[in-house]
């Protein structure tokens, strides 16, 4: 326990109050550790604003969510009408609702950019693996939050989107049908589903999300931020133990973030006030038709932020299974032939590959589609151990690595776009190539990330004063 600190009786009222608190709660200590004496690298660029912005969007979602729950009715007969009631009869209800619906999309925009920043600068590499794992957990929780929140307006897309996704779980062998029943609470998506999704959306998932956000930030402040050069600034400290390339988060990055926040709010408000539907991408047109369990829409498309993963799901057809089986076979053969390891391990790989191939032939492609969709997210968790590059930052990697990352981004956009479109032969083929590339990028990363001529990493960060 810290020693009790006495303060001069002549001190100002503010100083006395702060001293009183500091003797009972580490207020000044926390502020120092996380703000005024948290040293962040001074060479942050544009890509480093999305962490703060996702925190801002989280706050927007929680605050607007609280007000929406005051008027929303989680009842299949009333839900759609209560949303329209909010839009029409609740004072400023339209603004709160549009902020929440735009906020959902904005959340994914900033989180995707934030994750891509991590990918570019190797922010998940040692010693920041746990930050990355907590972050991936946040991404997963966010997807669950968004998926369940989307059912609540009880429009046609809400209803049929949930129906399609929950039905996927029934493709899991043995437990599938019961699991789907457990999730829905009924044999079709209905009032019971709406009620439990509401509960999860409003209480359960936000609690998990907040806990993970706290863990993410604590872990970050423990090891310190990475930077665009991928250099550990703690390796060069001055006599006082302060990193030479570091500057206090407050005030330098707090003013930085306030600037970023005002720019973000400008764009956010432009959407909220002038294009809340965002051409059908943020609010789908079909969702203005109340849910109808007897009328299936001709084309069911998830909201844009799920579509890359939806494409991974749809790409796995029974035809595609042959390609995937061939991939497993080739992988096993290569591993046995090329990697030096004890015979026992080689035997295990052969047996493992045979079992997987047998399962791939025995179980319906629909199930493997679900595996691909889930795997597309889960594989991100392994990134710290997949990347074998001798340097962290893309700046010092071979140029063809940069090109590969560019192709990865383009591919992500392409499969995202295809996920919004109805199935067709050409789109199906492109989706399958896109899927193979997406997984190939990660699975082969331990191999390709070591290849090429790497540039020399400087000792100190690159920074030009502005």
């Amino acid at each position: 326990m810290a020693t009790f600190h006495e303060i001069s009786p002549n001190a100002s009222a503010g100083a006395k109050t702060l001293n009183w608190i500091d003797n009972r709660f580490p207020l000044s200590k926390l502020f120092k550790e996380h703000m005024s004496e948290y040293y962040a690298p001074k060479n942050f660029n544009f890509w480093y604003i999305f962490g703060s912005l996702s925190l801002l969007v989280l706050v927007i979602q929680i605050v607007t969510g609280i007000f929406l729950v005051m008027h929303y009715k989680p009842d299949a007969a009333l839900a759609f009408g209560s949303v329209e009631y909010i839009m029409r009869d609740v004072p400023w209800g339209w603004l709160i609702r549009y902020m929440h619906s735009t906020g959902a999309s904005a959340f994914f925009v900033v989180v995707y950019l934030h994750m891509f920043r991590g990918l570019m600068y190797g922010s998940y590499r040692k010693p920041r693996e746990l930050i990355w794992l907590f972050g991936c957990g946040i991404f997963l929780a966010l997807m669950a939050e968004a998926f369940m929140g989307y059912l609540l307006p009880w429009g046609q897309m809400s209803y049929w989107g949930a129906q399609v996704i929950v039905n996927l779980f029934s493709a899991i062998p043995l437990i599938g049908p019961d699991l789907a029943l457990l999730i829905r609470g009924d044999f079709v998506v209905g009032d019971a589903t709406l009620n439990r999704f509401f509960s999860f959306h409003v209480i359960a998932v936000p609690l998990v999300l907040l806990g993970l956000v706290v863990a993410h930030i604590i872990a970050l402040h423990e090891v310190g931020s990475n930077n665009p050069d991928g250099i550990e600034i703690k390796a060069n400290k001055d006599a006082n133990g302060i990193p030479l390339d570091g500057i206090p988060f407050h005030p330098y990055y707090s003013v930085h973030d306030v600037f970023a926040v005002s720019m973000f709010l400008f764009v956010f408000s432009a959407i909220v006030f002038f294009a809340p539907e965002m051409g059908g991408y943020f609010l789908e047109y079909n969702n203005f038709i109340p849910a109808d369990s007897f009328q299936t829409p001709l084309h069911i498309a998830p909201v844009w932020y799920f579509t890359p993963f939806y494409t991974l799901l749809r790409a796995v057809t029974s035809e595609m299974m042959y390609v995937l089986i061939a991939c497993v076979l080739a992988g096993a053969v290569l591993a046995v032939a090329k990697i030096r390891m004890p015979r026992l391990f080689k035997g295990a790989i052969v047996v493992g590959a045979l079992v997987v191939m047998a399962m791939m032939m025995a179980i319906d492609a629909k199930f493997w589609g679900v595996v691909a969709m889930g795997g597309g997210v889960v594989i991100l968790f392994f990134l710290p151990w997949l990347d074998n590059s001798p340097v962290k930052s893309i700046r010092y990697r071979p140029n063809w690595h940069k090109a590969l990352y560019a192709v990865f981004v383009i591919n992500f956009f392409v499969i995202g776009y295809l996920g919004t479109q109805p199935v067709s032969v050409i789109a199906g083929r492109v989706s399958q190539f896109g899927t193979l590339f997406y997984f190939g990028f990660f699975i082969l990363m331990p191999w390709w990330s070591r290849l090429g001529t790497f540039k020399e990493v400087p000792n100190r960060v690159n920074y030009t004063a502005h």
Partner: protein
Amino acid sequence: MKIMGFTQKIILGMAMALGLAGAVQASEGGAAWDKAPDRITDMAALQNGAKVFVNYCLNCHSAGFMRYTRLTDIGLTQDQIKDNLLVTNSKIGDTMKAAIDPQQAKAWFGVNPPDLTVIARSRAGAGGTGTDYLYSYMRGFYKDETKPTGWNNHVFPNVAMPHVLWEMQASMTPGEYDQTMGDLVNYLQWMAEPAQTTRKTIGMWVLLFLAGLTFLTWQLNKAYWKDVK
């Protein structure tokens, strides 16, 4: 402005029902949509659209989330609404309910005439805005004796709804009819989101404020960072 009497409504409903025994569901693949005129801030047009809506559409379709009193937003007074637009038994604070009984409607038409409150928002798509669709749809009816109603539609092939406005169309020049339909679909667009004009007006001020704030925070940021070498 004259509101159709209850008896007339029943007769009209029966007439529609006769032809509608085998109502056909919506199908894709209609004609391309025409561009609807934009009169979303034209109060006279919106009022005329509201008049057409209440006199014709509201016989079979509800606007179950739209309150009559909200029509004050398009420049009508409470008294004007009470005297001219209220359907039988409705109060000014009520939502717009169809004159027809929903269960009867289902029995007569085979399908329940959809609620029209947010129809303009739901019908937008790759072909254009919701108003484009509705404008083309309302002008897309043609005689087709092979259909149970005797009517078909270029934009919505095999639609269950007959051409309710055929008498109106027959009594007008094509230009007048287009003009009236333009008013009607703009009213539907307004009704789908009555706050839309306010939203844009407030939006201008919000963006103006944020532009100023961005400038200030940019300068603040610059002032702090000029010392960082």
